[in-house]
Structures are given as structure tokens and as C-alpha cells.
């Protein structure tokens, strides 16, 4: 019962919040408040890890390759209020739950194969 009680306190995810999977290429729109100004910052990359399952502290890590082949990773809380929306651009076929091997790769070898099936 205690678990049910705790789960009931989980923040609701947006209805339009997609189910993420490792290997997905996503655009994360995050609201950033600077003083009084609020703007949206977009972070686009590959989901390389989902941690924490369905717990309140669950996170996902997005990796992108910035200028000069520098890898940038950001970890977002799954239930973060500052994330406005997440768009899934691509699903990839991956065989690992955590794609940390992408860290050692760049260029051609860092590509992921797209999933080929029609989503219903």
C-alpha cells in the first residue's frame, strides 16, 4: 500500500510526453528563466540512457555531438517541470539499454540503424 501511496504522488506526465527509448533521437524543449525573461532552449540528440525506471527520480540522458566533434550530454529528470515538450524524431534499433559505447565513437561508427516498421 505504501508503494501505491507514493506512486499517487508522482507528478503527472504531459499527455503529449512521448514514451522514450534508448536510441531515440529527440528534441528536448526546456524552459529557461533568466531573471525575468523566459525562453525555450532546445537540445537535440540521442537518448543514450534511461535511469530510474518509473520512480520519481527517473532521468534520461541525451547526447549530442556539438561543434568540432565534442560530445555533450545532458541528463533530464523524467518528470521535470521545466521541460516543455519532447519531440521524438527517430527511433533506432539498438541492442543495449545504455548506449555508452557511443562515447568512444564518432562519425560513421556512431550511427544508429533506424527502426523499420510502421507505427500504428
Amino acid at each position, binding site marked *: 500500500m*505504501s508503494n501505491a*501511496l*507514493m506512486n*499517487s*504522488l*508522482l*507528478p503527472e506526465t504531459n499527455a503529449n510526453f512521448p514514451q522514450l527509448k534508448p536510441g531515440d533521437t529527440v528534441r528536448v524543449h526546456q*524552459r529557461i*528563466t533568466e531573471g525575468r525573461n523566459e525562453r525555450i532552449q532546445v537540445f537535440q540528440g540521442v537518448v543514450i540512457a534511461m535511469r530510474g525506471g518509473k*520512480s*520519481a*527520480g527517473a532521468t534520461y540522458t541525451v547526447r549530442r555531438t556539438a561543434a568540432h566533434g565534442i560530445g555533450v550530454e545532458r541528463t533530464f*529528470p523524467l*518528470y*521535470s*517541470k*521545466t521541460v516543455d515538450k519532447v519531440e521524438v524524431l527517430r527511433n533506432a534499433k539498438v541492442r543495449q539499454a545504455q548506449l555508452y559505447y557511443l562515447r568512444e565513437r564518432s562519425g560513421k561508427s556512431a550511427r544508429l540503424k533506424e527502426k523499420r516498421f510502421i507505427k500504428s
Partner: protein
Amino acid sequence: MRGILGKKVGMTQLFDDSGEVIPVTVIEAGPCTVTQVKTTDSDGYNAIQIGFEETAERKLTKGQRGHLAKAGAANLRRLRELRYEDAPAFSAGDVIKADIFEEGDFVDVTGISKGKGFAGTVKRHGFAGGPKTHGQSDRHRAPGSAGAGTTPGHTFPGMRGPGQMGNKRVTVQNVKVALVDAERNLLAIRGAVPGARGSLVLIREAVKKPKQA
């Protein structure tokens, strides 16, 4: 003093409006029934006795059942007394719910801490222990010296040493109430609270209220 009994459910986290994570302890608080009212006239001081957690009739003694029946309360397992200046305003049988607190209130939470058994000084008092290398034997977690020699000839009282750790009444003061859900009798309190999950906690208005900024 406002107060309520509850059962620790566990810890989780919430997000505040700015999106920051607040670690919270969830407590199933109340509903508590006032089982006895003590006033200056009747007992020399003002207090209320509150009961929490229903139990089977056979688990209570006849005396306890009689006491609860007098207040018209259910078979409650836990009774605690709270000093309460406004005690005459209550009558036996009144129900106290989690909504006596609101978000942002500062409270003190009392519980029985988790027992660690007979613990050494390293665990119990944070002593550094001895060196791990350079030919040490049996000195790794030793407490070190307990004082001088022939003068004074004894160990000073209050010297920290090994002993029972935990399983002791502990109060955390000035913790903020992060969430109140009176319907489901839930309180979320910022930070950690003494005790194991499922153990009884007493939540009271903070004695040392922090200055309002």
C-alpha cells in the same frame, strides 16, 4: 501546540514551481481522534490526548478499550499526549486531520530512529579510527586514548565511546511542510525524518520558529 500522529510511508521527490527537486518524506498523518482532554481544572495543565491507527479489539486491554469507549473513539493503537493551550476548545471524540498544517509551515518531527545496535566509535561518533597501513594490527577502528594516566586516574564522564546507537527518540526541528493532502491524509515533509518506514511519527508545530524573511 498543534500536532498530529502519523506513519512514515517513505521518501520520494517533488518538483517545486521553479522546477527544482525537493526531497520529501511522505507521512500518512491522521486522522487522529481526541481521546482525552486535560485542562488546568481537571489535571493542572492543558493538554489533549490523541489516538491514531485502528487495530483489532483483541489487541487492546480492557482498560484501554474502556478509555477509548469513553471518548467514543475506535480501537486505536497509539495514544500520545500533546500540551495544548487551547485544550478546552476540544472535546473528546474530535477528529484531527492533516489539514491542521499547510504548505510552508515549519514543523518538528519526532520518531524512534532506526536501531544500529552496539556500534563502535567510528560509526557512532565519526571517529577517524587508526591508520590503515604502516604495520598496524587491530587498530583500524580503535577509539584511541580515553584520557590521561595516573592523573586524573579515571576517564572523564561524557567521554564518547562505543554503545547503543539509534533506536532512540529523535526530533528533527524546523522542517518545512512541502505538501498537504487532507483528503488522503498525507503530509510531505522536506528532508528526512527519523525512523523506519511504517514507524510512528509525531508532527508538531515548530518550537523554534525560524524568522520569517
